[in-house]
């Protein structure tokens, strides 16, 4: 796991780099410490039920081994055999272990490494200029540079150590380039480059779905874990764009337990399983602008972005932000048609008047308009038709203004009927609006 990477004629150099990735340690788990209570080995399991045995055995046990486990003069390995406390069989004493392999490295994590430059020759080396850089396809980042203050000397058999850290922000191939420029035992200036390669992969993918229900926009985000570890979702927050406000929707947590001892309600942690586990988040978004609905931007609209912070062993953090999440495109409403008055009684085959209001929602003059009821798609006659001239002409409507007009209609079928297909045509802009309004009426037969 420590490396001496390629790129140098090792035999010619007094110095060599040793590198070890220093992500956080883990807590060691021993599945079978194989430690036992002496009663469980020396005696039959029910022996203590026998009153005679029960009166003698404790004396036998205490005579055997009485020295405490932490007595340094006790030269036995009894601590590998005798159970000191029942929780010893958990094999989890809180012992830390150094990372044993380079492991996988993911976007959003911090690459941390211990770098040791060793002088394995018999001579002192002087004036050592050390540089450590990360090289990717796109850039070269300097992590350490001692050019201004070179290391005066490294004695024979000595070392110079340093720790570097780099927030990983690019995917793909990365190279840690370690170089040393030094004067060796013969006062010859030598240059030692060493390269350590690693690949950065994508830890998560986020799939989103936007749904609009009336005035509310719902955002579903599904996070999938592509790493080799379980990820603890420390914080997943949606940062809304301007004019948007967000509420995170969570299910009622049925596992909430209140423990008297622990003193707080225990929530199930959000842990996403390694290699393909997923977790879903739901957000409710509301658009709130000082200028009311008229200022909804046309075209696609940006809702915001998701900020994700996850953790692995001993809190090793990773952070990512999604790209802008976009909502469904909103087309600006230009005109609106409202029903003002519908007569309470409508009789079959008898004309009736319906008052309508045409509202211009834009900041320019619209019209003049033509209004008609379009032909039905169905083969049989429409139930409600215009009585009189089939097309009505309306004049211009000023910006943010409205115009009332009446449609003279006649119903040819009785019962519950629909006034549908009301079409408004802007004769200047040549735009047709035909899904503005549909009305339901009841037609009496007499």
């Amino acid at each position, binding site marked *: 796991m*420590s490396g001496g990477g390629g790129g140098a004629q090792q035999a010619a150099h007094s110095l*060599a780099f*040793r590198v*070890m990735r220093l992500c*956080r340690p883990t*807590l060691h*788990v021993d*599945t*079978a410490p*194989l430690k*036992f*209570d002496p*009663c*469980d*080995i*020396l*005696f*039959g*399991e*029910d*022996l203590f*039920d*026998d009153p005679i*045995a*029960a009166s003698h055995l*404790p004396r*036998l046990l205490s005579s*055997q*081994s009485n020295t405490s*486990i*932490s007595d*340094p003069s006790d*030269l*036995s*390995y009894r601590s*590998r055999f005798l159970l000191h406390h*029942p*929780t010893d*069989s*958990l094999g*989890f004493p*809180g*012992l*830390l*272990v*150094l990372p044993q392999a380079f492991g996988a490295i993911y976007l959003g994590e911090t690459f941390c490494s211990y770098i*040791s430059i*060793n002088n394995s020759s018999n001579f002192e080396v002087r004036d050592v200029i050390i540089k450590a850089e990360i090289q990717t396809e796109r850039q070269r980042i300097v992590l350490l540079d001692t050019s201004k203050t070179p290391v005066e000397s490294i004695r024979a058999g000595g*070392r110079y150590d340093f*720790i570097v850290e780099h927030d990983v922000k690019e995917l793909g191939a990365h190279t840690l380039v370690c170089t040393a420029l030094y004067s060796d035992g013969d006062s010859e200036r030598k240059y030692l480059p060493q390269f350590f390669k690693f690949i950065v992969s994508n830890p998560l993918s986020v799939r989103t779905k936007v749904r609009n229900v009336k005035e509310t926009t719902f955002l579903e985000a599904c996070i999938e874990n592509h790493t080799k570890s379980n990820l*603890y979702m*420390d914080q997943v927050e949606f940062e809304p764009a301007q004019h948007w406000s967000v509420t995170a929707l969570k299910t009622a947590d049925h596992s909430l337990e209140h423990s008297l*001892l*622990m003193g707080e309600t225990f929530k199930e*942690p959000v*842990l996403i399983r*390694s290699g393909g586990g997923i977790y879903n988040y739901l957000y409710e978004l509301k658009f709130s602008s000082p200028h009311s609905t008229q200022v909804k931007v046309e075209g696609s609209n940006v809702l915001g972005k998701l900020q994700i912070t996850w*953790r692995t*062993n001993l*809190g090793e953090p990773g952070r990512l932000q999604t790209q802008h999440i976009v909502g469904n495109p909103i087309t600006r409403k230009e005109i609106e048609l409202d029903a003002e008055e519908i007569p309470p009684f409508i009789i079959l085959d008898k004309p009736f008047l319906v008052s309508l209001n045409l509202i211009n929602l834009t900041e320019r003059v619209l019209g003049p308009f033509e209004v008609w009821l379009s032909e039905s798609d169905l083969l049989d006659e429409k139930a409600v038709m215009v009585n009189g001239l089939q097309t009505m002409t309306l004049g211009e409507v000023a910006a943010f203004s409205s115009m009332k007009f009446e449609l003279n209609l006649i119903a040819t079928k009785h019962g519950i009927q629909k006034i549908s297909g009301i079409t408004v045509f802007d004769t200047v802009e040549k735009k047709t609006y035909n899904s503005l309004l549909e009305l339901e009426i009841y037609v009496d037969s007499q």
Partner: protein
Amino acid sequence: MDAPPSPPPPPSPPPEECSPIAATAVANVADDPLTSPYASMNSYCHDLSTLQDLACRGAWRTIVDKVARSRSLSLLSKPHEHLIYLTFNLLSLVKLRRYSDAQQELKTLDDDLDSKQYLYESYPDHYPNHKPGSMVPFALRWLHAHLPFTLGDRQLALDRLYTLLHFIRDKKLPPNRDSDSEVSLTLWKKREEFVVNTIISHHLSQKEFKVCLSLLRAEISKNDDPLLVSKLGYVQMQYGDLDGAKRSFEVVEKLVMGSESGNVELKNLVSRNKALKYLVGKDYVSAVREYEECIERDGSDVVAINNKALCLMYLRDLSDSIKVLESALERVPTVALNETIVVNLCSMYELAHVNHADIKKTLSTWIARVAPDDFDNSCTRI
């Protein structure tokens, strides 16, 4: 290597015990300190104190030899002696990682450990007036459950462990059991805890964290032991819930403050938990300070020693981290010689030395001289 172990021979009653007078005489023997089977460890079971001493010294190979010899020389006369020797033999083979041999040993037993042949009442001549019950040492049941895991069948081992847990809870712990022995009840409660902790260990090594949390919380609700709550904190740390771990450690501190605050073990527990909190916050200096306090209170606190060495390394002080581990091995080898510490030391050697093979060889040679039979040398990665 050893002759295959023979099954326990059928008990052969000595001729004197056939008469009722002799039976009464035998009954009184138990009370007579000079002839009682419980006069000493060895009168209860042949050479048992030697076996126990060997186990404490980690001389597992010697135990295997001794069991083989005792069997071939027919030195064991009573059924319970055979079972105890078998248990020691099985444990030794598992400690020595000779798992197929262990399985062979286990096969000499009846599949059903509740069978009549392991009950005291089946041998009235050997155990006159003895309370009926099982003579199977509990460790044998545990080893029987554990063995499939060593042979690669983790699922079967887990199933057996859960079955064992139910056996304890249904048969041995219910409130109205026939025995009124307090000692016996306490023992079974400890055995229950022992098995639950083994189960949690399996789930933990498989990273099934939510199951661990749920099992630990159930145990804590029965018994607010500061060690248990600390383990809960360690599980939370292991998967990354630092806030949860901090809360657990605060509970531990409250529990310890309440009880025997003079107890060095508990004081060190609280300090080590504090040190872990500093460590995850990257404040390695404060962590080192906490660990040093622990070591001052108890020079054999190997968890504190090991973790202190790691903190020094994260502080860029590789030389001192190596010194801390080396000096612990020299000073308190019987507690410090532990596979995890050796793994850490070897990682440090690999980083510190271009030609680390030499120094690892030196370590390995020293280990071979000093280590118990069950020490796993693969941790040196030579």
